[in-house]
């Protein structure tokens, strides 16, 4: 049993234009102290997959099936009051937009203390003292002054650090970070990633890192899941993935990326380059390979059935009928 086990997760949304298939039959697991990257283009379902864990999807329009177990405890059917004990305490989230994710009307200190008072039963004073420590932990200078300030007085990088301080305040088992560095300057990115690494090393927090930046993946993740059109296309330890990508989509992503950028880590940040063609509409879900239309090695059988994830190595899975031959370099 892993710390977190997601099995056959399928998530859809009822919208005015029809049912949107966001995530389809995704299974993955997360070990204690592991940093797992979820990568793919926007709309591939990586965020929806991750946000299913703390159940932060709009409840009325979301249709979710499958199983999500934290330490063996099923979260998908947990009553809402118990789920609220999990959120912020055992599973916490750092959101993508540091500019808008903090409440503009309250001080930074209040927003950090709030989560401590909720889960740790700290008094007002104790929570404030702990908030100062947390700001120090995430590397904000002069924390005692900073807690009295409002979000608009802080820079983007500072705000993201405050978000992280809120997320780690109660020493969560699982931290979900949704594109935590996308909105930040390159120089600030490295610092934020260091904070994550430090947390994992010190507290043993497992991290799900949602990103479309392969540089970030190479820099910090232990394992990566590549998602395409709501499904896992490939899953492997990061070194193995970069050394021996199997799925043509993964290959495409890497080919579009100068090798130097991969090696350079976060400093040499590159966005996933565009692969020609369009992502299929999320409104339909035909029984074929979703990548077929854009795939260089696609053949007729790709239209006849949908490839499922097949094991190609001890921890290496790929969903493709015609995977790249082993040894082919990206």
């Amino acid at each position, binding site marked *: 049993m892993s710390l977190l086990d997601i099995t056959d997760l399928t998530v859809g*949304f009822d*919208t*005015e*234009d029809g049912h*949107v298939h*966001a995530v389809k039959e995704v299974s993955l697991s997360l070990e204690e102290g592991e940093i797992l990257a979820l990568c793919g283009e*926007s*709309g591939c*379902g990586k*965020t*929806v997959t991750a*946000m299913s864990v703390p159940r*932060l*999807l*709009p409840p009325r*329009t979301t249709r979710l099936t499958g199983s999500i177990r934290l330490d063996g405890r099923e979260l998908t059917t947990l009553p809402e009051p118990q789920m609220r004990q999990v959120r912020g305490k055992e599973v916490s989230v750092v959101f*993508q937009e540091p500019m808008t994710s903090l409440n503009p009307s309250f001080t930074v200190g209040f927003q950090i203390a709030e989560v401590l008072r909720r889960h740790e039963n700290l008094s007002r004073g104790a929570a404030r003292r702990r908030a100062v420590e947390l700001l120090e932990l995430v590397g904000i200078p002069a924390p005692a002054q900073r807690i009295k300030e409002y979000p608009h007085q802080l820079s983007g990088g500072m705000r993201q650090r405050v978000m992280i301080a809120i997320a780690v305040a109660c020493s969560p088992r699982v931290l979900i970070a949704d594109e935590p560095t996308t909105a930040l300057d390159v120089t600030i990115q490295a610092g934020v990633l260091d904070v994550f690494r430090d947390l994992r090393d010190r507290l043993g927090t497992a991290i799900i890192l949602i990103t479309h930046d392969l540089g970030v993946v190479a820099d910090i993740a232990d394992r990566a899941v590549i998602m395409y059109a709501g499904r896992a296309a490939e899953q492997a330890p990061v070194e193995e993935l970069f050394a021996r990508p199997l799925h043509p989509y993964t290959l495409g992503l890497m080919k579009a990326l100068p090798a130097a950028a991969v090696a350079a880590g976060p400093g040499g940040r590159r966005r996933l380059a565009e692969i020609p063609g369009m992502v299929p509409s*999320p409104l339909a879900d035909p029984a074929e390979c979703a990548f077929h239309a854009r795939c260089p090695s696609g053949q007729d059988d790709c239209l006849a059935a949908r490839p499922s994830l097949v094991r190609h190595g001890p921890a290496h899975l790929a969903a493709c009928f015609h995977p790249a031959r082993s040894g082919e370099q990206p």
Partner: protein
Amino acid sequence: MADPMTVSVGAIRVGSPAERRRRLWRRFRRRPMPMAGLVLVAGFLLLALVGPLVTGDPIIQDYAATLAPPSAAHPMGTDDLGRDVLARIASGARVSLQAGVLSTLLAMVAGIPIGLLAGFYRRWLDPLVGRLVDVTLAFPFLVFAVGLAAIIGPSLTGVVLALGFAQLPAVIRITRGEVLAIKEMDYVSAAIADGAADGHILLRYVLPNCAGPLIVQATVAIPTAIIGEATLSFLGLGVQPPTPSWGVMLTVAQQYLDVAPWLAIWPGLLIALATLGFNLLGDGLRDVLDPRSGL
């Protein structure tokens, strides 16, 4: 949570303009409330345009049948002077429509150019217009109406002028806001960089993009003006008897509330239905044009 959002919002943005319009219409048509609004507005227009042609004379008095309850000859009854209420309702609709449409047109004709220019020439014109809008807003609508009624005497012209003037700040602000937003868009800044004439940019790019918000504004302004006209006429500051206005009819009704309650029911009901129609239509348009506003 970002993903489903992008899907529904993005769905509007994709496709050719014609395709987009078709999709918007489909969304609009599927909702019962805006469609009900459309029906009410159409009914109101029909009543105002065709009604007076078929319902007879709204002024002719019949002292043999004063304050008569609804009957076959007078489906809505008669008033204190024996005038047919239905005929007066139909003519009153025409007055209402005039007040609503003319005041809105007036505000648009005066406000759009000011808003366009203020948004375009931010350095020198914008602050000036901003001050003027502030001062205009400092005068409650009724103050205009009272002032105008005092100066030119109570009349429909005064009502239209007061209502139009009251709407002016909103039109200026909306147009100006759209200009500022559109000027930031790539294709417009490109046109500006290409040295296109200001007038060309305003007419070719900016004005068409203001259409949506201004149409929504009109669906707010027209019902406001309909109620405004009725209110002023009710107070005696607007349309003068014997011209039939729904507001004037209610002034009379107030005196006969205990003996002829139908006099108070019909005009009020018509005002409420016409206004409701525009409001439903406006809510629907806003909803379809901007699914996230939720108003």
